[in-house]
């Protein structure tokens, strides 16, 4: 909402600085986003007089001007303009001045002559003929009148207004108008706001002789007010009106259109003016569109309309889409002789639906969507007519035509003022509440325990129902000042605050992976079908059941991710390309799986990626085991070959806890690597947080420390290639010996000289111990023999020579 200071001054006595005003408005819930100039982008331009003019010695088309800008020394400025003359008053852009389009003025040498500034055209100052006569001539803008040399151009031509750009919250549709915002501004400045009084203009003749209105759908159009003006004199609107329209960012067109726009700004109510000659029989019908109907709007676009949309029509055709845009067929032109001014209230939700369907929102539509009210519609119409009269723009006919189905009777609400104080934790006397509400022209009286409030027609945000107490608490609170309410600490029962187990475990996962050397990633949740293809995810795979967005940014962001891998690879590739040297990454994030029309299934996953010279399958596996160990689940954990198509065959595995798959890991498939242009081998693991937590090891209990020493033995055996480390470990541990076998560790695998083709040597260490005595030499020898025999029997292992 743009509020020019000059306009504000119509309603208040201006006695503060702009900064103070901004501060006061802020405390009332109105944020001033910016303070704008009336001549945006222009600064450092002053009035100067050309005191001498001579031809440039080196250029035919240039002239050297001597300029008096009221300073001790005159300036020398070179110009190419031909309309300058000695004695002319001109706008002079000084060194450092800024002009429209971001141009900055600096001293320059022009064909050997120093020029200390620039003479400006109207265009360079962003001015039009309407702003200043001569602004659009070809050449320099020549100034008229008795002006002070050196004075700013803004001041000299009366364009030095400042404009407050105010951000409105959606509940205050009433403040989307000069009157509404000035009402609040006056209160903010501690002044009484006098509601404007519109002079009623009696018309000649009878409206019914010229026009009539039928509203077929009063739910979507609770009020339709209109008035006929004939004998139109279409001309530019007066300068004061044009200036105000421009200050709020509107383009002046002609007096009739400008009046509707002026009322839109002043009263916040959109209006429309039809060429009455183009409305058959002068009969306006407000009705739903017919199936297959098309309306050509003011912007010359043919718009197909549907029966859920409301049209303004005459008995034969649509002449406008209600609340959105008028029709081209009934547009005001310079030949228009008579017009019908329309000020109507349309239902916001319907206008919203219409604009969505048409994919076209106009300023007017935006107002209707925010909400307009029927009383204001009538006021807007009366104000427009007052302006027609003032501008002598035509002959006003009869009485207003007013079809009103809306209840416009005054609304009274009863508020429990003790409850208001309870919400705010204040002790404001009800009489003081009455005074406070009075400052924003809401009248109220105290009746026993009740505050009876007359809700003004413009405050549609104040409800009659359950919310009334809260609505009035908000008004009283912001007028009293939130700053004046002392903060308190919540009392009542004591609460034991805690982090839920799920988030506590998530912390533990992240902390462990950080200790493993990983940097934590945050990737977006969006992915696309091409990424799923690049990940080689087969049709029918669960990961293809991605949730689709109806309104994505693009195809590549049209799905919710079903794996973290694509995002992780994006980031790994970025780091590789930027040579950050980071090799270890992880992310903890949600993925979603489509569940028909209901909420999708949400799962939280851990994605871990290792990509560096030093990394391999087993460095990744080491970190996975560290993670499992921290959750006390190494027992019952196993890892078996398997996993998704994005992994390289032979280097991929499923991670199991108590027999259930909780995740997978492996080397990324070369084709996937290629798709992401990562030459460095990437190892990736993806683990379900929920499943990890489900298999968390139980409570830890203390085991008595051994009282007798263990004996550690080494053994190297030759086995077939197909024998796995897991099988070897299980076999050693299972040797039928009366002693305890523990600490079984693989410490070397050897292939090559001395070992037959297709076989390998595996070297293990393990420990023997007994709970009740120190082992004897015989026991140790027997234990060793038993292990060797077991390996031989179970896996065909032979002691390495």
């Amino acid at each position, binding site marked *: 909402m743009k509020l020019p200071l000059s306009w504000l001054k119509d309603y208040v006595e201006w006695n503060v600085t702009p900064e103070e005003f901004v501060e006061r408005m802020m405390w009332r819930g109105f944020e001033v986003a910016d303070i704008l100039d009336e001549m945006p982008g222009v600064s450092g331009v002053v009035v100067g007089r050309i005191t001498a003019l001579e031809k440039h010695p080196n250029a035919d088309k240039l002239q050297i001007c001597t300029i008096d800008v009221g300073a001790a020394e005159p300036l020398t400025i070179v110009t190419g303009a031909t309309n300058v003359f000695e004695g002319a008053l001109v706008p002079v852009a000084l060194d450092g001045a800024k002009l429209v389009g971001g141009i900055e003025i600096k001293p320059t040498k022009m064909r050997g002559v120093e020029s200390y500034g620039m003479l400006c055209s109207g265009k360079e100052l962003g001015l039009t003929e309407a702003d200043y006569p001569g602004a659009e001539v070809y050449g320099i803008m020549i100034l008229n009148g008795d002006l002070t040399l050196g004075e700013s151009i803004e001041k000299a031509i009366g364009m030095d207004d400042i404009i407050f750009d105010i951000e409105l919250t959606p509940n205050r549709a009433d403040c989307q108008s000069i009157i509404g915002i000035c009402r609040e501004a006056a209160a903010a400045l501690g002044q009484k706001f006098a509601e404007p009084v519109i002079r009623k203009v009696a018309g000649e003749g009878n409206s019914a002789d010229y026009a009539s209105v039928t509203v077929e759908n009063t739910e979507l159009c609770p009020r339709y007010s209109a008035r006929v003006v004939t004998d139109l004199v279409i001309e530019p609107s007066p300068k004061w009106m044009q200036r105000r329209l421009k200050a709020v960012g509107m383009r002046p067109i002609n007096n009739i259109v400008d009046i509707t726009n002026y009322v839109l700004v002043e009263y916040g109510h959109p209006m429309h003016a039809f060429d009455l000659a183009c409305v058959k029989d002068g009969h306006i019908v407000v009705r739903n569109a017919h199936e297959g109907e098309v309306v050509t709007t003011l912007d010359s676009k043919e718009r197909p309309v549907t029966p859920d949309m409301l049209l303004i029509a005459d008995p034969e055709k649509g002449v406008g889409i209600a609340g959105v845009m008028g029709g081209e067929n009934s547009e005001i032109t310079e030949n228009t002789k008579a017009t019908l001014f329309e000020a109507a209230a349309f239902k916001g939700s319907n206008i919203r639906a219409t604009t969505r369907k048409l994919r076209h929102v106009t300023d007017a539509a935006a107002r209707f969507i925010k909400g307009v009210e029927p009383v204001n519609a009538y006021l807007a119409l009366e104000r427009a007519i007052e302006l027609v009269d003032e501008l002598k723009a035509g002959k006003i006919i009869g009485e207003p035509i007013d079809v009103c189905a809306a209840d416009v009777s005054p609304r009274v609400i009863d508020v429990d003022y003790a409850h208001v104080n309870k919400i705010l934790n204040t002790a404001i006397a009800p009489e003081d509440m009455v005074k406070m509400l009075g400052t924003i022209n809401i009248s109220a009286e105290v009746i026993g325990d009740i505050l009876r409030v007359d809700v003004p027609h413009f405050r549609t945000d104040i409800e009659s129902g359950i919310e009334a107490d*809260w609505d009035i608490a908000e008004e009283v609170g912001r007028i009293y000042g939130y700053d004046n309410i002392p903060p308190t600490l919540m009392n*009542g029962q004591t609460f034991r605050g805690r982090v839920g187990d799920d988030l506590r475990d998530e912390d533990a996962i992240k902390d462990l992976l950080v200790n493993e050397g990983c940097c934590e990633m945050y990737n977006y949740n969006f992915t696309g079908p091409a990424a799923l293809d690049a990940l080689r995810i087969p049709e029918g795979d669960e990961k293809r059941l991605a949730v689709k967005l109806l309104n994505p940014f693009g195809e590549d962001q049209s799905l919710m991710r079903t794996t973290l891998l694509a995002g992780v690879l994006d980031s790994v590739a970025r780091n590789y390309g930027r040579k950050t040297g980071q090799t270890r990454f992880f992310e903890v994030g949600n993925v979603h799986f489509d569940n028909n029309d209901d909420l999708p299934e949400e799962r939280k996953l851990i994605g871990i990626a290792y990509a560096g010279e030093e990394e391999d399958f087993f460095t990744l596996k080491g970190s996975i085991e560290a993670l499992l160990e921290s959750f006390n689940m190494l027992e019952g954990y196993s890892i078996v070959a398997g996993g998704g198509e994005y992994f390289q065959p032979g280097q991929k595995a499923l991670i199991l806890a108590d027999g259930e798959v909780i995740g997978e890991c492996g080397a990324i498939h070369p084709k996937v690597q290629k798709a992401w242009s990562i030459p460095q081998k990437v190892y990736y693991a993806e683990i379900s947080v929920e499943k990890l937590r489900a298999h968390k090891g139980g409570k830890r209990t203390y085991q008595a420390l051994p009282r007798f020493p263990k004996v550690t033995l080494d053994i190297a055996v030759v086995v077939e290639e197909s024998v796995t480390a897991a099988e070897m470990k299980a076999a050693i541990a299972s040797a039928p010996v009366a002693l305890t076998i523990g600490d079984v560790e693989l410490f070397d695998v050897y292939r090559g000289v001395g070992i037959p083709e297709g076989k390998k040597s595996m070297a293990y260490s393990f420990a023997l111990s007994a709970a009740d005595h120190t082992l004897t030499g015989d026991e140790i020898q027997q234990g060793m023999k038993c292990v060797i025999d077991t390996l031989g029997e179970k896996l065909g292992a032979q002691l390495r020579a």
Partner: protein
Amino acid sequence: MNEALEKIRQDALARLAEVQDEKELEALNVSVLGRNGALTEILRTMGKLDKEQRAKLGQASNAVKKELEEAIGKRREEIAEIMMEKRFAAEALDVTEPGKRKAPKGHLHPMTRTYREIRDALIGMGFTTFGGPEVEYDDYNFTKLNLPLDHPARDMQDTFYINDKVVLRTHTSPCEARALLNLKPPFRLVMPGRVFRVDEVDASHSPVFMQMEGFVVDRDITLADLKGTLDTFVHAVFGEDVRTRFRPSYFPFTEPSAEVDISCSICGGKGCRVCKGTGWIEILGCGVTNPHELENCGLDPKEWKAIAFGIGVDRVTSLKYGITDIRLEYENDARFLRQF
């Protein structure tokens, strides 16, 4: 004879003073006190002497022997000290060489740090964590929170839709509806999570970001409690010196509503580029929960009151660390991540 003894003593002591290491010391020990040492040699000559002289020489040589043994013992300790000094000199380190690690430590994302900090501040005030899904019913995201289908404020939030009743949640507030419908009041909850808005990516916008919702339901909770809670919270997260400003605003799910600004941490309130010269930075929106929301979720707003606030974790992270481009938070450039 005594002269010979005296000479041995003198020689031995003189040599002892020269001895620099244990090997020389042991050689000296052997050459004087050993089986074939000088002192032993003298004692061997005793047989030729008469009884009286023998006794005398025996006494004298024993005294010398004892003296030399003590002297050698003392010198042995001295040499051990010297040897240790030498070893220390040889083993001296350049302590400024870099430390060694098994793997270089990784780094939590700065948003995780901020999230934990905010969370822990609230936990200390009796809040407990609670949550809801990222893909949410329109009903919970909007309608239950006093944002019915035709509510004009729906335009405030550009929403990603899955279908006409399922959306990507645009804020963490739907967790309020879930809490009201599932938990028995009174309660104090902190609800963190990712939220989504149709915002093109730029330096200050991201279609995905993180919010934390604070929500308290109790019988007599007030706007003043909200102010006190947020003051405490802001001081815990931003420091005791930071000032807060609580100014009126509007949200459909709260009434009265407010936005909280903190004094700019970059310029200390004097005005800079980050705070656009105002000295203040907006960090959250809050308010007394709208009675319609409580009613929509089955609570009597005359009996129960609630306060709520929503904090942008991305924004707080940017402010705390002086990050000027939100895109950095989702690019995962390790040179960025390693700074935290």
